[in-house]
Protein backbone atom coordinates (compact mmCIF):
# COMPACT_ATOMS: atom_id res chain seq x y z
CA UNK A 1 0.00 0.00 0.00
CA UNK A 2 2.75 2.33 1.05
CA UNK A 3 4.69 1.39 -2.06
CA UNK A 4 1.73 2.14 -4.30
CA UNK A 5 1.33 5.58 -2.76
CA UNK A 6 5.02 6.27 -3.16
CA UNK A 7 4.88 5.08 -6.77
CA UNK A 8 1.88 7.30 -7.41
CA UNK A 9 3.68 10.26 -5.94
CA UNK A 10 6.75 9.43 -7.98
CA UNK A 11 4.67 9.23 -11.15
CA UNK A 12 2.99 12.55 -10.51
CA UNK A 13 6.37 14.09 -9.76
CA UNK A 14 7.71 12.69 -13.01
CA UNK A 15 4.67 14.03 -14.85
CA UNK A 16 4.98 17.45 -13.30
CA UNK A 17 8.65 17.45 -14.20
CA UNK A 18 7.99 16.37 -17.78
CA UNK A 19 4.97 18.58 -18.34
CA UNK A 20 5.31 21.83 -16.47
CA UNK A 21 2.48 24.42 -16.47
CA UNK A 22 4.05 26.50 -19.25
CA UNK A 23 4.48 23.47 -21.50
CA UNK A 24 0.97 22.30 -20.72
CA UNK A 25 -0.44 25.71 -21.65
CA UNK A 26 1.63 25.89 -24.84
CA UNK A 27 0.47 22.44 -25.98
CA UNK A 28 -3.16 23.21 -25.21
CA UNK A 29 -3.27 26.62 -26.86
CA UNK A 30 -1.26 25.64 -29.93
CA UNK A 31 -3.63 22.87 -30.83
CA UNK A 32 -6.67 25.10 -30.35
CA UNK A 33 -5.80 27.64 -33.00
CA UNK A 34 -6.91 27.02 -36.57
CA UNK A 35 -3.53 28.40 -37.62
CA UNK A 36 -1.85 25.13 -36.61
CA UNK A 37 -4.19 23.15 -38.83
CA UNK A 38 -3.56 25.46 -41.78
CA UNK A 39 0.22 25.37 -41.22
CA UNK A 40 0.12 21.58 -41.40
CA UNK A 41 -2.19 21.66 -44.42
CA UNK A 42 -0.08 24.06 -46.47
CA UNK A 43 3.15 22.35 -45.48
CA UNK A 44 1.89 18.99 -46.70
CA UNK A 45 0.42 20.61 -49.78
CA UNK A 46 3.76 22.25 -50.63
CA UNK A 47 5.80 19.11 -50.03
CA UNK A 48 3.26 16.92 -51.88
CA UNK A 49 3.34 19.28 -54.83
CA UNK A 50 7.14 19.25 -54.91
CA UNK A 51 7.11 15.45 -54.63
CA UNK A 52 4.61 14.84 -57.42
CA UNK A 53 6.39 17.31 -59.70
CA UNK A 54 9.67 15.51 -59.02
CA UNK A 55 8.15 12.07 -59.70
CA UNK A 56 6.61 13.37 -62.91
CA UNK A 57 9.87 14.94 -64.03
CA UNK A 58 12.05 11.89 -63.30
CA UNK A 59 9.53 9.59 -64.96
CA UNK A 60 9.08 11.65 -68.10
CA UNK A 61 12.76 12.55 -68.38
CA UNK A 62 13.78 8.96 -67.70
CA UNK A 63 12.06 7.97 -70.95
CA UNK A 64 11.01 4.45 -70.03
CA UNK A 65 8.15 4.93 -67.61
CA UNK A 66 7.47 1.23 -67.18
CA UNK A 67 10.69 0.33 -65.41
CA UNK A 68 11.68 1.39 -61.87
CA UNK A 69 15.20 2.56 -61.68
CA UNK A 70 16.63 2.53 -58.11
CA UNK A 71 18.96 5.37 -59.10
CA UNK A 72 15.92 7.43 -60.03
CA UNK A 73 14.30 6.86 -56.68
CA UNK A 74 17.53 7.83 -54.95
CA UNK A 75 17.48 11.13 -56.81
CA UNK A 76 13.84 11.53 -55.82
CA UNK A 77 14.65 10.85 -52.19
CA UNK A 78 17.52 13.33 -52.21
CA UNK A 79 15.31 15.88 -53.86
CA UNK A 80 12.62 15.36 -51.24
CA UNK A 81 15.16 15.47 -48.42
CA UNK A 82 16.50 18.86 -49.56
CA UNK A 83 13.03 20.22 -50.29
CA UNK A 84 11.96 19.33 -46.76
CA UNK A 85 15.11 20.97 -45.37
CA UNK A 86 14.20 24.15 -47.26
CA UNK A 87 10.65 24.06 -45.91
CA UNK A 88 11.94 23.58 -42.37
CA UNK A 89 14.24 26.58 -42.84
CA UNK A 90 11.13 28.62 -43.63
CA UNK A 91 8.94 27.13 -40.93
CA UNK A 92 11.23 27.07 -37.88
CA UNK A 93 11.87 30.84 -37.62
CA UNK A 94 8.19 31.57 -38.21
CA UNK A 95 7.17 29.28 -35.37
CA UNK A 96 9.76 30.36 -32.82
CA UNK A 97 10.74 33.98 -33.47
CA UNK A 98 7.57 35.26 -31.81
CA UNK A 99 7.22 33.05 -28.76
CA UNK A 100 8.58 35.55 -26.21
CA UNK A 101 8.12 38.84 -28.05
CA UNK A 102 4.56 37.74 -28.86
CA UNK A 103 3.82 37.41 -25.16
CA UNK A 104 5.46 40.78 -24.59
CA UNK A 105 3.31 42.38 -27.28
CA UNK A 106 0.16 40.73 -25.92
CA UNK A 107 1.16 41.98 -22.44
CA UNK A 108 1.05 38.53 -20.90
CA UNK A 109 4.80 38.23 -20.34
CA UNK A 110 4.98 40.31 -17.14
CA UNK A 111 2.28 38.16 -15.56
CA UNK A 112 4.25 35.03 -16.41
CA UNK A 113 7.50 36.51 -15.12
CA UNK A 114 6.05 37.25 -11.69
CA UNK A 115 5.13 33.57 -11.19
CA UNK A 116 7.40 30.97 -9.65
CA UNK A 117 8.40 29.56 -13.05
CA UNK A 118 12.13 29.89 -13.65
CA UNK A 119 13.49 31.59 -16.76
CA UNK A 120 14.95 28.31 -18.00
CA UNK A 121 11.58 26.54 -17.60
CA UNK A 122 9.85 29.24 -19.60
CA UNK A 123 12.44 29.35 -22.40
CA UNK A 124 12.90 25.57 -22.68
CA UNK A 125 9.15 24.91 -22.55
CA UNK A 126 8.61 27.37 -25.37
CA UNK A 127 11.33 25.63 -27.38
CA UNK A 128 10.04 22.12 -26.66
CA UNK A 129 6.48 23.05 -27.54
CA UNK A 130 7.52 24.63 -30.86
CA UNK A 131 9.81 21.69 -31.61
CA UNK A 132 7.05 19.21 -30.85
CA UNK A 133 4.73 20.90 -33.29
CA UNK A 134 7.42 20.93 -35.98
CA UNK A 135 8.12 17.25 -35.33
CA UNK A 136 4.41 16.50 -35.77
CA UNK A 137 4.51 18.31 -39.10
CA UNK A 138 7.65 16.54 -40.29
CA UNK A 139 6.37 13.14 -39.16
CA UNK A 140 3.15 13.73 -41.02
CA UNK A 141 5.18 13.91 -44.24
CA UNK A 142 6.24 10.25 -43.88
CA UNK A 143 3.44 9.04 -46.22
CA UNK A 144 4.93 11.27 -48.92
CA UNK A 145 8.30 9.61 -48.36
CA UNK A 146 6.66 6.22 -48.51
CA UNK A 147 5.84 6.91 -52.13
CA UNK A 148 9.55 7.09 -52.84
CA UNK A 149 10.00 3.83 -50.98
CA UNK A 150 7.73 2.19 -53.54
CA UNK A 151 10.55 2.62 -56.02
CA UNK A 152 13.19 1.15 -53.71
CA UNK A 153 16.82 2.20 -53.44
CA UNK A 154 16.73 3.90 -50.01
CA UNK A 155 17.70 2.31 -46.72
CA UNK A 156 15.54 2.91 -43.61
CA UNK A 157 18.72 3.94 -41.80
CA UNK A 158 19.19 6.81 -44.20
CA UNK A 159 15.61 7.89 -43.67
CA UNK A 160 15.98 7.81 -39.88
CA UNK A 161 19.24 9.77 -40.07
CA UNK A 162 17.65 12.39 -42.31
CA UNK A 163 14.72 12.79 -39.91
CA UNK A 164 17.05 13.12 -36.94
CA UNK A 165 18.94 15.77 -38.88
CA UNK A 166 15.66 17.64 -39.39
CA UNK A 167 14.95 17.58 -35.66
CA UNK A 168 18.43 18.92 -35.05
CA UNK A 169 18.16 21.76 -37.56
CA UNK A 170 14.76 22.67 -36.10
CA UNK A 171 16.33 22.78 -32.66
CA UNK A 172 19.13 25.04 -33.92
CA UNK A 173 16.90 27.46 -35.84
CA UNK A 174 14.36 27.34 -32.99
CA UNK A 175 17.03 28.31 -30.47
CA UNK A 176 18.09 31.26 -32.63
CA UNK A 177 14.43 32.24 -33.05
CA UNK A 178 13.83 32.19 -29.31
CA UNK A 179 17.02 34.15 -28.66
CA UNK A 180 15.98 36.94 -31.03
CA UNK A 181 12.46 36.82 -29.66
CA UNK A 182 13.84 37.40 -26.15
CA UNK A 183 16.44 40.01 -27.04
CA UNK A 184 14.40 42.04 -29.51
CA UNK A 185 11.23 43.78 -28.39
CA UNK A 186 9.18 43.40 -31.57
CA UNK A 187 8.17 40.10 -33.16
CA UNK A 188 8.51 41.51 -36.66
CA UNK A 189 12.17 42.47 -36.12
CA UNK A 190 12.85 39.16 -34.40
CA UNK A 191 11.38 37.22 -37.35
CA UNK A 192 13.47 39.23 -39.81
CA UNK A 193 16.65 38.69 -37.74
CA UNK A 194 16.00 34.93 -37.49
CA UNK A 195 15.37 34.61 -41.23
CA UNK A 196 18.52 36.68 -41.81
CA UNK A 197 20.61 34.30 -39.74
CA UNK A 198 18.90 31.33 -41.45
CA UNK A 199 19.70 32.79 -44.85
CA UNK A 200 23.32 33.28 -43.87
CA UNK A 201 23.59 29.69 -42.58
CA UNK A 202 22.02 28.20 -45.69
CA UNK A 203 23.27 30.50 -48.46
CA UNK A 204 25.87 32.82 -46.95
CA UNK A 205 28.18 30.04 -45.81
CA UNK A 206 28.08 28.43 -49.28
CA UNK A 207 28.88 31.75 -50.97
CA UNK A 208 31.66 32.34 -48.46
CA UNK A 209 33.07 28.91 -49.26
CA UNK A 210 33.16 29.57 -53.00
CA UNK A 211 34.65 33.06 -52.57
CA UNK A 212 37.40 31.81 -50.23
CA UNK A 213 38.07 28.85 -52.52
CA UNK A 214 38.47 31.18 -55.52
CA UNK A 215 40.91 33.36 -53.62
CA UNK A 216 42.87 30.36 -52.34
CA UNK A 217 43.11 28.81 -55.79
CA UNK A 218 44.49 32.07 -57.15
CA UNK A 219 47.08 32.13 -54.40
CA UNK A 220 48.05 28.51 -54.91
CA UNK A 221 48.95 29.23 -58.54
CA UNK A 222 51.57 31.69 -57.38
CA UNK A 223 53.33 29.53 -54.82
CA UNK A 224 54.32 25.94 -54.61
CA UNK A 225 53.39 23.64 -51.77
CA UNK A 226 50.48 25.90 -50.80
CA UNK A 227 47.70 23.98 -49.10
CA UNK A 228 44.34 25.36 -48.03
CA UNK A 229 42.62 22.22 -46.82
CA UNK A 230 40.95 24.10 -43.98
CA UNK A 231 38.45 25.70 -46.36
CA UNK A 232 36.46 22.46 -46.27
CA UNK A 233 35.56 23.39 -42.72
CA UNK A 234 33.66 26.42 -43.98
CA UNK A 235 31.21 23.99 -45.55
CA UNK A 236 30.80 22.34 -42.17
CA UNK A 237 28.75 25.46 -41.26
CA UNK A 238 26.30 24.74 -44.06
CA UNK A 239 23.28 22.47 -43.37
CA UNK A 240 22.82 21.57 -47.04
CA UNK A 241 26.39 20.25 -47.22
CA UNK A 242 25.91 18.49 -43.89
CA UNK A 243 22.74 16.75 -45.09
CA UNK A 244 24.48 15.80 -48.31
CA UNK A 245 27.34 14.28 -46.33
CA UNK A 246 24.81 12.07 -44.52
CA UNK A 247 23.37 10.90 -47.83
CA UNK A 248 26.76 10.56 -49.52
CA UNK A 249 29.46 9.85 -46.89
CA UNK A 250 32.19 10.16 -49.54
CA UNK A 251 31.49 13.91 -49.68
CA UNK A 252 33.31 14.46 -46.39
CA UNK A 253 36.58 13.02 -47.72
CA UNK A 254 36.23 14.92 -50.99
CA UNK A 255 35.69 18.24 -49.28
CA UNK A 256 38.25 17.84 -46.54
CA UNK A 257 40.95 16.73 -48.96
CA UNK A 258 40.30 19.60 -51.30
CA UNK A 259 43.24 21.97 -51.47
CA UNK A 260 45.80 19.53 -50.17
CA UNK A 261 48.54 18.27 -52.39
CA UNK A 262 48.14 14.53 -52.86
CA UNK A 263 50.98 13.87 -50.40
CA UNK A 264 49.33 15.94 -47.66
CA UNK A 265 46.00 14.08 -47.79
CA UNK A 266 44.83 12.39 -44.65
CA UNK A 267 41.62 10.69 -43.53
CA UNK A 268 39.22 13.16 -41.91
CA UNK A 269 38.74 12.60 -38.17
CA UNK A 270 35.00 13.24 -38.18
CA UNK A 271 32.31 13.40 -40.79
CA UNK A 272 31.24 16.78 -42.16
CA UNK A 273 27.77 16.46 -40.63
CA UNK A 274 29.30 15.61 -37.26
CA UNK A 275 31.38 18.75 -37.36
CA UNK A 276 28.25 20.67 -38.35
CA UNK A 277 26.42 19.28 -35.34
CA UNK A 278 29.25 20.16 -32.97
CA UNK A 279 29.45 23.75 -34.20
CA UNK A 280 25.73 24.35 -33.98
CA UNK A 281 25.34 22.54 -30.67
CA UNK A 282 27.64 25.17 -29.17
CA UNK A 283 25.87 28.05 -30.93
CA UNK A 284 22.38 26.83 -30.04
CA UNK A 285 23.37 26.28 -26.41
CA UNK A 286 24.80 29.80 -26.38
CA UNK A 287 21.58 31.19 -27.84
CA UNK A 288 19.48 29.40 -25.22
CA UNK A 289 21.76 30.47 -22.40
CA UNK A 290 21.51 34.09 -23.55
CA UNK A 291 17.70 33.82 -23.78
CA UNK A 292 17.45 32.43 -20.25
CA UNK A 293 19.69 35.16 -18.87
CA UNK A 294 17.98 37.99 -20.70
CA UNK A 295 14.36 36.93 -20.18
CA UNK A 296 14.19 38.60 -16.80
CA UNK A 297 16.08 41.80 -15.95
CA UNK A 298 19.36 41.29 -14.14
CA UNK A 299 18.43 42.20 -10.62
CA UNK A 300 21.63 41.43 -8.75
CA UNK A 301 24.13 44.26 -8.70
Amino acid at each position, binding site marked *: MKNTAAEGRGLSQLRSWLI*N*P*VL*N*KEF*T*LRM*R*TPRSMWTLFFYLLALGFIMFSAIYLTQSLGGNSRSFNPENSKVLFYFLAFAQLGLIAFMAPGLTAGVISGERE*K*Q*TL*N*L*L*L*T*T*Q*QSSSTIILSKLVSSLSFMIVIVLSTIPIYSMVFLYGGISPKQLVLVFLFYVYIMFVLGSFGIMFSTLLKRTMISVIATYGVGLFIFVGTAILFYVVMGVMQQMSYNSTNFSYGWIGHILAWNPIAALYSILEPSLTTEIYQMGYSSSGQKKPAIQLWQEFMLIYAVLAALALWLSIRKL*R*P*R*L*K*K
Partner: protein
Amino acid sequence: MSIEQKLPEEYDSQAGDQRASVPMIEIKGLSRTFGSFQALKSIDLTIHKGTVFGFVGPNGAGKSTTMSILATLLAPTAGYAKVDGYDVTKYPHEVRKRIGYMPDFFGVYDNFKTIEYLHFYGASYGIPKAEREALIPQLLELVNLSDKKDAYVDTLSRGMKQRLCLARCLVHDPELLILDEPASGLDPRARIEMREILRELKAMGKTIIISSHILPELAEMVDEIGVIEHGTMTAQGNVTDIQNRLRVKRFLQIRLLDRVEEAEQFLRDRPYVNRLLRDEQGIQIHFGGHDAEQSELLHALMEAGFKLVSFSEAQTNLEDVFLEITKGGDDVQ
Protein backbone atom coordinates in the same frame (compact mmCIF):
# COMPACT_ATOMS: atom_id res chain seq x y z
CA MET B 1 22.14 26.25 -2.69
CA SER B 2 18.74 25.77 -1.07
CA ILE B 3 16.36 28.63 -0.53
CA GLU B 4 16.74 28.27 3.24
CA GLN B 5 20.46 28.87 2.95
CA LYS B 6 19.84 31.99 0.97
CA LEU B 7 17.52 33.58 3.52
CA PRO B 8 18.68 36.84 5.09
CA GLU B 9 20.14 36.72 8.57
CA GLU B 10 17.10 38.06 10.34
CA TYR B 11 15.23 34.89 9.41
CA ASP B 12 17.72 32.49 10.86
CA SER B 13 16.32 32.51 14.38
CA GLN B 14 13.23 33.73 16.20
CA ALA B 15 11.79 34.19 12.75
CA GLY B 16 8.20 34.28 13.96
CA ASP B 17 8.67 37.15 16.43
CA GLN B 18 10.69 39.29 14.11
CA ARG B 19 8.51 38.76 11.10
CA ALA B 20 5.58 40.52 12.70
CA SER B 21 7.64 43.67 13.11
CA VAL B 22 9.08 43.61 9.60
CA PRO B 23 7.26 46.13 7.40
CA MET B 24 5.57 44.67 4.34
CA ILE B 25 7.28 47.20 2.10
CA GLU B 26 10.46 49.04 2.90
CA ILE B 27 11.93 51.30 0.26
CA LYS B 28 15.04 53.40 0.83
CA GLY B 29 16.70 55.79 -1.60
CA LEU B 30 15.12 53.97 -4.53
CA SER B 31 16.15 55.46 -7.86
CA ARG B 32 15.71 54.38 -11.43
CA THR B 33 16.91 56.01 -14.60
CA PHE B 34 16.01 55.20 -18.20
CA GLY B 35 18.86 56.64 -20.24
CA SER B 36 19.01 60.30 -19.24
CA PHE B 37 15.46 60.30 -17.85
CA GLN B 38 15.26 59.92 -14.09
CA ALA B 39 12.00 58.13 -13.38
CA LEU B 40 12.56 57.73 -9.64
CA LYS B 41 14.68 60.06 -7.53
CA SER B 42 15.59 58.50 -4.21
CA ILE B 43 12.22 57.44 -2.89
CA ASP B 44 11.68 56.38 0.72
CA LEU B 45 8.54 54.52 1.67
CA THR B 46 7.47 52.18 4.46
CA ILE B 47 4.18 50.32 4.45
CA HIS B 48 3.19 48.13 7.38
CA LYS B 49 1.32 44.85 7.19
CA GLY B 50 -2.43 45.09 6.72
CA THR B 51 -2.26 48.66 5.41
CA VAL B 52 -4.09 49.77 2.30
CA PHE B 53 -1.83 52.27 0.65
CA GLY B 54 -3.04 54.60 -2.09
CA PHE B 55 -0.37 55.68 -4.53
CA VAL B 56 -1.30 59.00 -6.10
CA GLY B 57 0.39 60.97 -8.85
CA PRO B 58 -0.04 62.12 -12.43
CA ASN B 59 0.88 59.91 -15.38
CA GLY B 60 4.62 59.37 -15.70
CA ALA B 61 5.30 60.35 -12.07
CA GLY B 62 6.94 57.01 -11.24
CA LYS B 63 4.09 54.94 -9.76
CA SER B 64 4.32 52.12 -12.27
CA THR B 65 8.13 52.14 -12.10
CA THR B 66 8.02 51.70 -8.30
CA MET B 67 5.46 48.93 -8.63
CA SER B 68 7.48 47.17 -11.35
CA ILE B 69 10.54 47.20 -9.07
CA LEU B 70 8.48 45.73 -6.23
CA ALA B 71 7.18 43.07 -8.64
CA THR B 72 10.79 42.07 -9.51
CA LEU B 73 10.30 43.14 -13.12
CA LEU B 74 12.72 46.03 -13.04
CA ALA B 75 16.05 46.54 -11.31
CA PRO B 76 16.59 49.77 -9.39
CA THR B 77 19.54 51.97 -10.34
CA ALA B 78 20.23 52.83 -6.70
CA GLY B 79 18.70 52.18 -3.28
CA TYR B 80 16.75 49.13 -2.27
CA ALA B 81 13.23 47.81 -1.96
CA LYS B 82 12.26 45.04 0.45
CA VAL B 83 9.07 43.03 0.55
CA ASP B 84 8.43 41.33 3.89
CA GLY B 85 12.13 41.77 4.66
CA TYR B 86 13.36 40.27 1.39
CA ASP B 87 15.35 42.48 -0.92
CA VAL B 88 13.67 42.35 -4.34
CA THR B 89 17.00 42.15 -6.16
CA LYS B 90 18.57 39.48 -3.95
CA TYR B 91 15.60 37.20 -3.25
CA PRO B 92 13.24 37.69 -6.19
CA HIS B 93 11.95 34.13 -5.83
CA GLU B 94 10.86 34.76 -2.21
CA VAL B 95 9.35 38.12 -3.16
CA ARG B 96 7.31 36.59 -6.00
CA LYS B 97 5.77 34.13 -3.56
CA ARG B 98 4.52 37.00 -1.43
CA ILE B 99 3.14 39.35 -4.05
CA GLY B 100 0.14 39.40 -6.32
CA TYR B 101 0.85 41.87 -9.10
CA MET B 102 -1.72 43.40 -11.39
CA PRO B 103 -0.11 45.65 -14.02
CA ASP B 104 -1.84 48.70 -15.46
CA PHE B 105 -2.00 47.04 -18.86
CA PHE B 106 -2.19 43.32 -19.32
CA GLY B 107 -3.35 40.86 -21.92
CA VAL B 108 -4.93 37.44 -21.84
CA TYR B 109 -4.25 34.34 -23.92
CA ASP B 110 -6.64 33.53 -26.75
CA ASN B 111 -8.57 30.27 -26.72
CA PHE B 112 -8.14 29.87 -22.97
CA LYS B 113 -11.09 29.31 -20.68
CA THR B 114 -11.46 31.28 -17.45
CA ILE B 115 -11.05 28.20 -15.29
CA GLU B 116 -8.04 27.01 -17.31
CA TYR B 117 -6.52 30.47 -17.03
CA LEU B 118 -6.63 30.31 -13.24
CA HIS B 119 -5.41 26.70 -13.22
CA PHE B 120 -2.45 27.72 -15.36
CA TYR B 121 -1.36 30.52 -13.04
CA GLY B 122 -2.09 28.39 -9.98
CA ALA B 123 0.14 25.63 -11.37
CA SER B 124 2.78 28.24 -12.23
CA TYR B 125 2.89 29.12 -8.55
CA GLY B 126 3.37 25.47 -7.72
CA ILE B 127 -0.08 24.85 -6.24
CA PRO B 128 -1.03 21.16 -6.51
CA LYS B 129 -4.02 20.29 -8.68
CA ALA B 130 -6.19 19.03 -5.81
CA GLU B 131 -5.76 22.34 -3.95
CA ARG B 132 -6.49 24.31 -7.08
CA GLU B 133 -9.71 22.37 -7.66
CA ALA B 134 -10.95 23.58 -4.28
CA LEU B 135 -9.53 27.09 -4.45
CA ILE B 136 -10.48 28.29 -7.92
CA PRO B 137 -14.30 28.12 -7.48
CA GLN B 138 -13.87 30.25 -4.34
CA LEU B 139 -11.79 32.80 -6.20
CA LEU B 140 -14.31 32.95 -9.04
CA GLU B 141 -17.01 33.47 -6.43
CA LEU B 142 -15.03 36.30 -4.84
CA VAL B 143 -14.69 38.17 -8.13
CA ASN B 144 -18.24 37.31 -9.29
CA LEU B 145 -17.17 35.26 -12.27
CA SER B 146 -18.56 31.85 -11.29
CA ASP B 147 -20.98 31.86 -14.21
CA LYS B 148 -18.14 32.62 -16.63
CA LYS B 149 -15.87 29.76 -15.66
CA ASP B 150 -16.19 28.07 -19.05
CA ALA B 151 -16.10 31.26 -21.10
CA TYR B 152 -13.01 32.06 -23.16
CA VAL B 153 -11.04 34.83 -21.46
CA ASP B 154 -10.59 36.84 -24.66
CA THR B 155 -14.39 37.15 -24.95
CA LEU B 156 -14.82 38.66 -21.46
CA SER B 157 -15.57 42.36 -21.00
CA ARG B 158 -12.87 44.66 -19.72
CA GLY B 159 -14.36 44.76 -16.24
CA MET B 160 -14.51 40.97 -16.12
CA LYS B 161 -10.91 40.69 -17.31
CA GLN B 162 -9.83 43.11 -14.57
CA ARG B 163 -11.62 40.99 -11.98
CA LEU B 164 -10.18 37.81 -13.42
CA CYS B 165 -6.71 39.33 -13.22
CA LEU B 166 -7.39 40.17 -9.60
CA ALA B 167 -8.40 36.54 -8.99
CA ARG B 168 -5.16 35.50 -10.69
CA CYS B 169 -3.21 37.74 -8.26
CA LEU B 170 -4.86 35.92 -5.37
CA VAL B 171 -4.37 32.38 -6.58
CA HIS B 172 -1.29 31.77 -4.40
CA ASP B 173 -2.73 33.66 -1.42
CA PRO B 174 -0.10 36.43 -1.40
CA GLU B 175 0.28 38.74 1.58
CA LEU B 176 0.84 41.80 -0.57
CA LEU B 177 -1.23 42.96 -3.52
CA ILE B 178 0.36 45.41 -5.93
CA LEU B 179 -2.47 46.82 -8.01
CA ASP B 180 -1.49 49.29 -10.70
CA GLU B 181 -4.58 51.19 -11.85
CA PRO B 182 -6.95 48.28 -11.29
CA ALA B 183 -9.98 50.33 -12.21
CA SER B 184 -8.74 52.14 -15.28
CA GLY B 185 -11.15 52.08 -18.16
CA LEU B 186 -13.98 50.64 -16.10
CA ASP B 187 -17.50 52.00 -16.14
CA PRO B 188 -18.95 53.27 -12.82
CA ARG B 189 -20.73 50.00 -12.10
CA ALA B 190 -17.59 47.93 -12.67
CA ARG B 191 -15.67 50.35 -10.47
CA ILE B 192 -18.13 49.83 -7.65
CA GLU B 193 -17.75 46.05 -8.04
CA MET B 194 -13.97 46.40 -7.94
CA ARG B 195 -14.22 48.55 -4.83
CA GLU B 196 -16.38 45.96 -3.11
CA ILE B 197 -13.85 43.22 -3.87
CA LEU B 198 -11.01 45.37 -2.55
CA ARG B 199 -12.97 46.00 0.60
CA GLU B 200 -13.27 42.24 1.10
CA LEU B 201 -9.55 41.83 0.54
CA LYS B 202 -8.82 44.50 3.11
CA ALA B 203 -11.07 42.65 5.54
CA MET B 204 -9.03 39.51 4.83
CA GLY B 205 -5.98 41.38 6.18
CA LYS B 206 -4.08 41.75 2.92
CA THR B 207 -1.60 44.57 2.50
CA ILE B 208 -2.59 46.44 -0.62
CA ILE B 209 -0.70 49.05 -2.58
CA ILE B 210 -2.98 50.57 -5.15
CA SER B 211 -2.54 53.32 -7.68
CA SER B 212 -5.68 54.51 -9.27
CA HIS B 213 -7.87 57.39 -10.22
CA ILE B 214 -10.58 55.48 -8.39
CA LEU B 215 -8.94 56.85 -5.22
CA PRO B 216 -11.66 59.40 -4.41
CA GLU B 217 -14.12 56.54 -4.32
CA LEU B 218 -11.74 54.48 -2.21
CA ALA B 219 -11.20 57.28 0.28
CA GLU B 220 -12.82 55.47 3.15
CA MET B 221 -10.86 52.26 2.69
CA VAL B 222 -7.37 53.71 2.06
CA ASP B 223 -5.39 54.00 5.29
CA GLU B 224 -2.46 55.92 3.90
CA ILE B 225 -1.61 57.75 0.75
CA GLY B 226 1.66 58.65 -0.86
CA VAL B 227 1.87 61.35 -3.47
CA ILE B 228 4.54 61.00 -6.11
CA GLU B 229 5.44 63.59 -8.69
CA HIS B 230 8.36 63.76 -11.13
CA GLY B 231 9.91 60.74 -9.40
CA THR B 232 9.85 62.17 -5.86
CA MET B 233 7.47 61.57 -2.99
CA THR B 234 5.91 64.94 -2.25
CA ALA B 235 3.70 63.78 0.60
CA GLN B 236 3.13 60.61 2.54
CA GLY B 237 0.99 59.75 5.54
CA ASN B 238 -2.59 59.04 6.44
CA VAL B 239 -5.27 60.78 4.46
CA THR B 240 -6.25 63.31 7.17
CA ASP B 241 -2.63 64.21 7.84
CA ILE B 242 -2.04 64.94 4.21
CA GLN B 243 -5.15 67.03 3.95
CA ASN B 244 -4.05 68.98 7.01
CA ARG B 245 -0.61 69.48 5.60
CA LEU B 246 -2.18 71.31 2.75
CA ARG B 247 -3.68 74.66 3.46
CA VAL B 248 -6.89 73.61 1.81
CA LYS B 249 -9.49 73.11 4.47
CA ARG B 250 -12.59 73.39 2.38
CA PHE B 251 -13.82 74.21 -1.08
CA LEU B 252 -16.47 76.90 -1.48
CA GLN B 253 -18.66 77.17 -4.54
CA ILE B 254 -20.19 80.61 -5.07
CA ARG B 255 -22.72 81.53 -7.77
CA LEU B 256 -23.66 85.13 -8.48
CA LEU B 257 -26.36 86.73 -10.53
CA ASP B 258 -24.03 89.39 -11.97
CA ARG B 259 -20.80 91.36 -11.26
CA VAL B 260 -18.83 88.16 -11.29
CA GLU B 261 -15.50 89.78 -12.17
CA GLU B 262 -15.91 92.36 -9.48
CA ALA B 263 -16.71 89.61 -6.97
CA GLU B 264 -13.64 87.70 -8.06
CA GLN B 265 -11.43 90.68 -7.29
CA PHE B 266 -13.22 91.23 -4.02
CA LEU B 267 -12.69 87.60 -2.96
CA ARG B 268 -9.03 87.64 -3.88
CA ASP B 269 -8.42 90.35 -1.32
CA ARG B 270 -10.18 88.50 1.49
CA PRO B 271 -8.23 86.54 4.11
CA TYR B 272 -8.14 82.72 4.08
CA VAL B 273 -8.78 82.61 0.32
CA ASN B 274 -5.89 80.50 -0.88
CA ARG B 275 -6.83 79.87 -4.44
CA LEU B 276 -9.57 80.97 -6.76
CA LEU B 277 -10.94 79.39 -9.90
CA ARG B 278 -13.67 80.72 -12.19
CA ASP B 279 -15.82 78.54 -14.42
CA GLU B 280 -19.33 78.43 -15.88
CA GLN B 281 -20.64 77.31 -12.52
CA GLY B 282 -19.36 80.47 -10.86
CA ILE B 283 -16.39 80.93 -8.55
CA GLN B 284 -14.65 78.15 -6.66
CA ILE B 285 -12.33 79.02 -3.82
CA HIS B 286 -9.99 77.00 -1.67
CA PHE B 287 -10.75 78.36 1.75
CA GLY B 288 -8.31 78.06 4.63
CA GLY B 289 -10.62 79.19 7.40
CA HIS B 290 -13.16 77.50 9.64
CA ASP B 291 -16.91 78.08 10.15
CA ALA B 292 -16.51 81.54 11.74
CA GLU B 293 -14.30 82.83 8.95
CA GLN B 294 -16.59 81.30 6.35
CA SER B 295 -19.57 83.07 7.88
CA GLU B 296 -17.64 86.35 7.84
CA LEU B 297 -16.87 85.91 4.17
CA LEU B 298 -20.54 85.34 3.35
CA HIS B 299 -21.48 88.36 5.42
CA ALA B 300 -18.88 90.53 3.65
CA LEU B 301 -20.15 89.47 0.25
CA MET B 302 -23.74 90.35 1.21
CA GLU B 303 -22.68 93.66 2.68
CA ALA B 304 -20.79 94.56 -0.47
CA GLY B 305 -24.10 94.14 -2.27
CA PHE B 306 -23.28 91.10 -4.42
CA LYS B 307 -26.37 89.20 -5.56
CA LEU B 308 -25.68 85.66 -4.46
CA VAL B 309 -27.52 82.75 -6.03
CA SER B 310 -25.76 80.15 -3.91
CA PHE B 311 -22.89 79.86 -1.45
CA SER B 312 -22.10 76.22 -0.77
CA GLU B 313 -19.37 74.11 0.71
CA ALA B 314 -18.02 71.23 -1.36
CA GLN B 315 -16.61 68.19 0.41
CA THR B 316 -12.85 67.84 0.09
CA ASN B 317 -11.81 64.42 -1.01
CA LEU B 318 -8.72 62.62 -2.18
CA GLU B 319 -9.18 63.83 -5.69
CA ASP B 320 -9.05 67.45 -4.52
CA VAL B 321 -5.98 66.65 -2.50
CA PHE B 322 -4.47 65.05 -5.56
CA LEU B 323 -5.30 68.02 -7.78
CA GLU B 324 -4.08 70.39 -5.16
CA ILE B 325 -0.75 68.70 -4.86
CA THR B 326 -0.12 68.04 -8.51
CA LYS B 327 -1.46 71.24 -10.05
CA GLY B 328 -1.41 73.94 -7.44
CA GLY B 329 2.25 73.87 -6.68
CA ASP B 330 2.28 77.42 -5.34
CA ASP B 331 -0.26 76.73 -2.68
CA VAL B 332 1.26 73.59 -1.27
CA GLN B 333 3.41 73.93 1.77
